[in-house]
Each structure stands twice: as structure tokens, then as C-alpha cells.
């Protein structure tokens, strides 16, 4: 199939959305678009599977390559390998779920869904592009919708958070740009021209000195997107101010853009430099993991809890990448997918709670299991996944990272791994504290004119929310119970 469909379809959906009128039409359109994306993603998966089983050896499949800017040898070059397919699936899932949970969005709903669709388009484009220019292009395409989504529909210090997020991400992409330019001018293809093409660059060997100079730029730049310490501070504010769907996208997809970018940079573009700097990467990752976890302990707002835990979890991604063993990298990818689903689910649950109770303060909530069992169950599942319970995706991913990390015999690396392992205990602590207070315990809803009586206000999830949560949970279980398909997908 033509990969460009993944870009074109959301684009068309977005454009059509502009001409829809009335909330009903708009969301119907958005949903159908998202569902089509999901279908497309699955078709892609199966076709990829066929190709591989019939023994197609190519690094990337379904490649399309059009010359875009001749003089600069910039191509529109797309193609996928297992990793990108995993990310595409993730995007598709989160998109559908995100649109479903924001079903009853009143304020400017046309613009809202328009931006969501645009965001997903950016993500798809990013994951399939094999030309650094297009990669960068889509990376930045995905920034502005976030800014608007948070700023317009956000809560709390929305404008501030939106600005902070946009600026920090811009800073990230600025660094990425420098890195890319550096790479570009250090490539000498046979034709004598420079190139942005990932695969070609992977073939021709960039001088190690140049790698050492430009790796930090590229890696840190992408790192900003995936909450690399100390550039993670946009995460808590951004996530907590964002509307539910936006939080889901932010944590579920756009933080993965960064991880994916780091992965490509470290494994394909500048492996030598990656080895050279791996110590630092691991150091930062470990700090993010541990310190993110501990910082989470002190949070009182559910969204902040999940945001900080995202910092901690994305640390695993970077750790896996930094360890640079095959297994660890595989683990990093699995962690990206798993965390994407899990955190999206978590934010969805939090959003549902917030819609009903109008508060996110742990102290003000309690015993919601009594009035909204379904949402509570979702919350619990998300929580358990986050603390790495076997049978859910989180465990598989983290364990893979650990196994991979442990392959590095260096004592300091071992230490980092042990600390990372230790974080799962801390995770358990904060997740269970939140869960024990909000879900269990005596029923309580305060700080918002709502009485803690079961009834219309504190109703359980609606059909759309149920489907959304169901989708994500299916994804989580699919990985958690039968991880082998994912590993095959990634490694093949």
C-alpha cells in the first residue's frame, strides 16, 4: 500500500472537517477519519507481515521516493520498518481514543478536532519519513497544534503552559536543526552532493569527529521532546493544563516522536558518537527515571502525577537507547509503545474523573469505585500497567530494557540498571497511594459543588468513553499477554 495515504487521509479529514457544520457532523467526520486511519494501520501491519514472511530482506519496506528540492537533494522519502509500524499503530489507537473521549467537546469543536487530526498527521508523517528533512518538517508540524490545543481548550495556567511547551519544543527542534545541518554537510554521496536520506547516511560513514560534534545537538534536541532531563519541565505543566485528548496525544504520541528520533539518531545516523556519549545518556536517563519517580511521589494533582511518571517512564526509553544493546533498544521501542498506550489510558481515566468531579486533587477524591466502577477499573488497570504488572504492557517493556541493559558488563551501567529497577518500587508507591485514595477508601468528592452522591453527576462512563478505554486496554493486553508478536515485528 502507499504510505502516503497515512498523510493524505488525515489531511483530507482535516480539510473536510473545516466544511462540516454542527457538532454532530464534525465529530462523526473526525471519528470516521480516525477509524479509517486505524484500519489503514492494520492493513499496513498485515501487508508488512506478509512481506516479511515472504522473506523481503529490505531494511525499509513500502518505500516511496520523490525528489523534492533538486538542488539540495532533498527527497520526499518514506518507508517503514517494524519500529515505525509499531509507532504508527500506537498513533492510530491513541487518535481514535482521543477523539472518542473528547466526544462531548462543545467549545469550538470544529477547530478542536481539526487540530487533533492535524497532530496525528504530523505524527504519521514523522514516523514514516526516511529523509531527515521531511522528518524535521513533520516534527515541527506537530508542535503548533499542541500549542493551540493547550492554549485554547486547556485548564489552569493554560496559556503559560502552552507557551512553555511550544518554546521548549521549538528549542528542541532548533537543536535538531543544527544537528541535521551538521550531518548534511558531512555527507558525501557518490554523486558528490550532500544528502538527508537516513538510509544513505547510515551507509556512508560520517567522520567520527563530526559525529561527536553534532550528536549532542541532534540527540538533545529530540530529547527535549521525550523529556530528557533537564529539559523535561514542559511535561508536567503542558500535560496538566491540556484538555484530556491533548494530554493523551502529548504523552501518548508526541513524546514518542522524540524517543523515535533519538533512536534513529543513535542507531542509524551516528552510532559511533552514540557509543562515545552513551555514558552521559545513561546518566541523564537514570536521573530522569529515579528523580522523576520521586518527584511524582510529592504530587497532589492526578495529572501531575501521571505527567511526572511519564518523565520517569520515558527515562526507560532513553536508558534502553543509551545501553545500545539490541535487546535494550528493542525494549526502548516496546516501552515507547507501551507507555504511549498506558499513559493515554491514564489520562483518559483522569479526564473522565475530572469531567464528573471537577477536581483532580487526590486529597479531594475518594472511593470512586462505589459510584463509577468502570472508570475506576480503567484507572486501576492503567495504574497497574504503569507500575509494571506482568500481563500488561509496561512489565514486558521494562523487563526487556533491564535484560538488555544488563548485557553491558560495565559496573556503572549495572548500577544505573539497578537504580532503574529500583524505580519500579517507587512507582508502586505513588501509584498505589493515588489508587488507594481516589478509587478505594470511603466515597468522597470535595472542592467542587458536587455532592458525593451516586447519580447523574457521578455517572459511570458513557459508551464513547467505554470504547476508547476498551481500545487502549486491548492494546495494552495484546502486548502484555502476547509480547512475542511485537518483538518479532521490531526485530524482523
Amino acid at each position, binding site marked *: 500500500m502507499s504510505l502516503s495515504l497515512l498523510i493524505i487521509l488525515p489531511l483530507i479529514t482535516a480539510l473536510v472537517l473545516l466544511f462540516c457544520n454542527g457538532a454532530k457532523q464534525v465529530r462523526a467526520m473526525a471519528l470516521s477519519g480516525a477509524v479509517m486511519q486505524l484500519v489503514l494501520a492494520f492493513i499496513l501491519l498485515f501487508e508488512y507481515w506478509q512481506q516479511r514472511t515472504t522473506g523481503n530482506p529490505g531494511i525499509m519496506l513500502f518505500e516511496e521516493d520523490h525528489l523534492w528540492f533538486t*538542488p539540495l537533494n532533498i527527497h520526499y522519502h518514506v518507508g517503514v520498518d517494524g519500529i515505525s509500524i509499531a509507532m504508527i499503530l500506537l498513533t492510530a489507537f491513541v487518535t481514535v481514543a482521543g477523539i472518542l473521549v473528547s466526544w462531548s467537546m462543545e467549545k469550538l469543536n470544529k477547530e478542536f478536532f481539526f487540530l487533533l487530526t492535524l497532530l496525528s498527521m504530523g505524527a504519521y508523517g514523522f514516523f514514516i519519513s526516511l529523509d531527515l528533512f521531511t522528518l*524535521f518538517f513533520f516534527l515541527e508540524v506537530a508542535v503548533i497544534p499542541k500549542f493551540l490545543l493547550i*492554549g485554547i481548550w486547556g485548564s489552569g495556567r493554560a496559556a503559560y503552559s*502552552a507557551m512553555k511547551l511550544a518554546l521548549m519544543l521549538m528549542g528542541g527542534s532548533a537543536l535538531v536543526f543544527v544537528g541535521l*545541518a551538521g550531518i548534511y554537510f558531512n555527507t558525501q554521496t557518490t554523486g558528490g552532493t550532500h544528502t538527508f536520506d537516513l538510509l544513505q547516511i547510515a551507509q556512508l560513514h560520517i567522520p567520527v569527529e563530526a559525529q561527536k560534534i553534532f550528536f549532542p545537538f541532534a540527540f538533545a534536541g529530540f530529547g527535549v521532546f521525550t523529556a530528557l532531563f533537564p529539559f523535561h519541565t514542559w511535561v508536567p505543566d503542558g500535560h496538566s493544563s491540556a484538555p484530556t485528548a491533548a494530554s493523551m496525544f502529548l504523552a501518548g504520541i508526541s513524546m514518542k516522536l522524540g524517543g523515535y528520533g533519538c533512536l534513529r539518531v543513535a542507531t542509524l545516523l551516528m552510532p559511533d558518537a552514540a557509543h562515545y556519549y552513551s555514558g552521559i545518556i545513561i546518566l541523564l536517563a537514570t536521573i530522569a527515571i529515579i528523580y522523576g519517580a520521586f518527584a511524582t511521589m510529592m504530587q497532589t494533582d492526578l495529572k501531575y502525577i501521571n505527567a511526572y511518571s511519564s518523565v520517569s517512564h520515558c527515562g526507560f526509553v532513553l536508558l534502553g537507547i543509551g545501553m545500545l544493546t539490541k535487546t535494550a533498544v528493542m525494549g526502548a521501542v516496546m516501552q515507547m509503545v507501551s507507555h504511549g498506550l498506558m499513559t493515554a489510558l491514564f489520562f483518559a481515566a483522569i479526564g473522565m474523573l475530572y469531567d464528573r468531579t471537577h477536581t483532580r486533587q487526590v486529597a479531594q477524591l475518594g472511593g470512586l469505585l462505589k459510584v463509577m466502577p468502570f472508570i475506576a477499573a480503567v484507572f486501576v488497570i492503567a495504574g497497574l500497567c504503569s507500575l509494571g504488572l506482568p500481563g500488561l504492557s509496561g512489565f514486558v517493556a521494562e523487563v526487556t530494557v533491564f535484560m538488555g541493559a544488563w548485557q553491558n558488563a560495565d559496573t556503572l551501567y549495572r548500577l544505573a540498571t539497578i537504580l532503574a529497577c529500583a524505580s519500579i518500587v517507587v512507582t508502586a508507591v505513588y501509584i498505589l497511594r493515588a489508587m488507594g485514595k481516589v478509587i478505594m477508601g470511603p466515597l468522597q468528592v470535595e472542592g467542587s459543588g458536587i455532592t458525593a452522591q451516586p447519580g447523574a453527576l457521578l455517572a459511570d462512563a458513557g459508551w464513547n468513553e467505554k470504547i476508547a478505554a476498551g481500545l487502549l486496554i486491548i492494546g495494552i493486553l495484546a502486548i502484555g499477554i502476547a509480547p512475542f508478536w511485537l518483538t518479532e515485528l521490531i526485530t524482523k
Partner: protein
Amino acid sequence: MAGDFFILMKHELIITVIIFTLLLLKIGSDLSNKSLLNLVNGLLLLNLAAGFIGNQPGMLFNEMFLTNPLIVLEKNILSLGTLIVSLQSASWLKQHEHVAEFYILLLCTLLGMFFMISAGNLLMFYVGLELSSIPLAAMANFDLGKRKSSEAAMKFIISSAFASGLLLFGISLVYGATGTLTFSEMASHINGSPLHIFAFVLLLAGFGFKISVVPFHLWTADVYEGAPVAVTSWLSVISKGSVLFVFISVLYTVFKPMAATWYNMLFVLSVLTIFTGNLFAIRQNNIKRFLAFSSIAQIGFILVGITGSSQLGTASLVYFVLIYVFSNLAAFGVVALVSALTGREQVSDYKGFYKTNPVLSWVLTIALFSLAGVPPTAGFFGKFFLLLSGAGKGNYVLITIAALNMIISFYYYLRIVKAIFMDANEQPIERLTIPGYPKLAMIICVAGIIVTGLVGYVYDYIHSLSFGF
């Protein structure tokens, strides 16, 4: 020969013809503003169309006037810009009593620019430059009643006279040092001797004044703020663009021998310019003044591109100017409309703009994104290529500084977007109905913003015409 003359100077001749038509009309008949506007815009459209047909390279008056495909392209870009500006200013000019004069002055400056661009000789260049700047002063004063307007005009004329004084002094030194005024001959005599450097600095100051490079930029903000919006947009896009075209060709051809020196100068100046432009832009409340400083920052980025001193550099510059025409004029279009219909020019006036005027808001937003360099707008491609050409020289300090400054510029562009979409406002700008011409202009601009970037052919074409070393 004669045929050549008419073909090679086609652009200039057409403009001259239009100018004289207008003069005659002014004297002879008393057309209503409306019909006059229709007429002029029609003529400008013709001019634009004519610009594309039957061009050929060549030179006249022993190298005083020369033209080639790139120059033709540059002229066409300027004509396009002129058309857009005139369309936008329609709603302002309707109630103005001196429409004809306005256009006469405007077209005189355009004519000056054309000559300047095709100048092969410092004399021709100087004449063109003055022709393009003196009428501007008069135009800046075109809101005859307004204090600010005349103050702006005064500041402009004084500064530009002073600048051209220095420029001339530089030219005289160059002449003294080389004994010629013709570019092609000059290049062979230039060597990096202190006299040459001094002369070059003076010339650079002259150029820098026109394109408002720090520290020669100080007039910019005041004039932009005081002048009528139409004039401001003209200043910020067309006159800058024209000078840039000349600037790069002078740098790349005449002063090629002392490239090392001017490279460093541009390095310093670009960093200064970017920083100053950004830092001042952050604080501005008058949207015209804000756009002035943002355009200064843009110039900084352009200088970065120029330092690349390669074919890529030239191409990126021309490409960027084209994009800049679209994006900046789109922004000014909205501003012009709002200020013409409501007279409000403060950033704070734009709070809650989206509630009342969604379409205008989107136009303005897209324009700002294009200026900020956000994909998929053309601005992204423009900036990317500029910085890339800058990086070609391998000076990554400069690139990093520039790239990180993008964050600041991003901040103040988003500040406007924030005001438009997110801030509440008790008395927002009321719902405006967009008249035909401005609407057309906006459509052109937005289309340009979208197409110019995504369609790779545009850049390829420009690149194929460009030169460098």
C-alpha cells in the same frame, strides 16, 4: 539594438508609462477614487503579466543597465508585491483625496528599484537608490494630518539623506581607489586594502540603512509606526527586497576579492541584528512597530543566509524574499484592514480577535507562522534553506545562535496568536466585512504561503537562475 532596448528595459518602460498615464489623468480628468483604483490595479496586473513574457538577458548603455533571468525574476517578484500592496491599500485609499499622487510616488520608487536592481554601474545604482527612497519619504507623510506620520517622514528623510551621504562618500572612495564605477571592472581592482575596507564599510552602511541592519536600523521602527500601513508594508517588503537583491549581487561580484573580510562583518552584524530585533520585538505593543522589529530579526536571518556566499545563498535569499513578500504582506494586509476600518493598531486590540473575525484571524495566524518559520507554511522552507546555506560555510556557532534565536522570535509571534485565540477581551474588534481587493490580496498571499513552500519546483527554478562562488 532599438528592439533590444524595448525588450530589455520592458519593466521600467511599462512602469514609466503607467506613471505618465496617472499624471495625465490627474491633470486631465477627475476620475472617482473607485474607478481610479480599478484602473491602477488593472494596470499593475498587466504589468505583472507582461513581466513574464519575452525576456532576454543583455546590457545597455555600456554596462550601465544590465538584465538577466534572475533580475527579471526579481523584478517580477517586486511587481507582484506592488500589486498586492496596492490591492491591500484600496480600503485605506478609498477615503483619501490624493490617490493618484500616492500611486505616482509608489511607482516612482518601484521604478527606482528596477533601475537599482539592473544597475551595472555605481552611478546608475545611486540614482536608482535615491529614486526609490526620496518618494518614500513623501509617502511616509501621506497621512497628512497625523503628527506621527510627518514625524516618521522627517526621520526617514533625514536619516536616508545622511545614509546616502555616507554611501556616496564610500562610493567616492571606491572611485578614487579603482578609477571606475562599473561593477565588472571594479572587481578586478578590489583588494582588501584598508581604504577598500573603509569604503566597503561605508557602502555596507548605506545598504544596511535600507535593509535596516543593526546598528543602522534605528529609523525603522519609528517610520514603520508613523507611516500609513500601506507605506509600512511597502517599506518592509518591497524596498527591503529590492536592496537585498542588489546587496547580494554587489557582495558576490564586486567585493568577491575581500570575501573573507565581509564574511566576518556579516557574521557580527547578523548576530547583532537578530538579537536586537528579537529583544525589541518582545516588548512592542503597537503591531506595526512589532512587525518592524520582527522584520529586523528576519533581516538578521537573511544575513546568515548571505554569509553562505554560494549559489545556495543567492537562491535561498531570492526564495526567502518571495516568501517574505507573501507572509509579511498577508500580515500587513490584515493589520491594514483593521487599522483602516477601526483605526486600532495595538496588539492588545487583537485579543479575542478570533471570536469576531475567524477568517482574518486565520490569515494573520498563518502569516505569523510563516514568518516564524513553522511548517507547512513557506516560511519554514525559506528559513531552513537560509540557515542551511549559512551552515554551508561550516560556521556552526552562527547557525546555533540563529537557531536558538528562533525560540525568541517564536515567542513573540505566538504572543500575537495567543492574543488572537486565547485572551479574553471585553471590547474586541467588531466583525469586519472584507472588501473585494483586500480579500483578493489575502487569497493571493495565503495561496502563496502554502504553495511556494510545498511545491519544490519554485525553489528549483530560482536556484537554476542563481549565482554564487
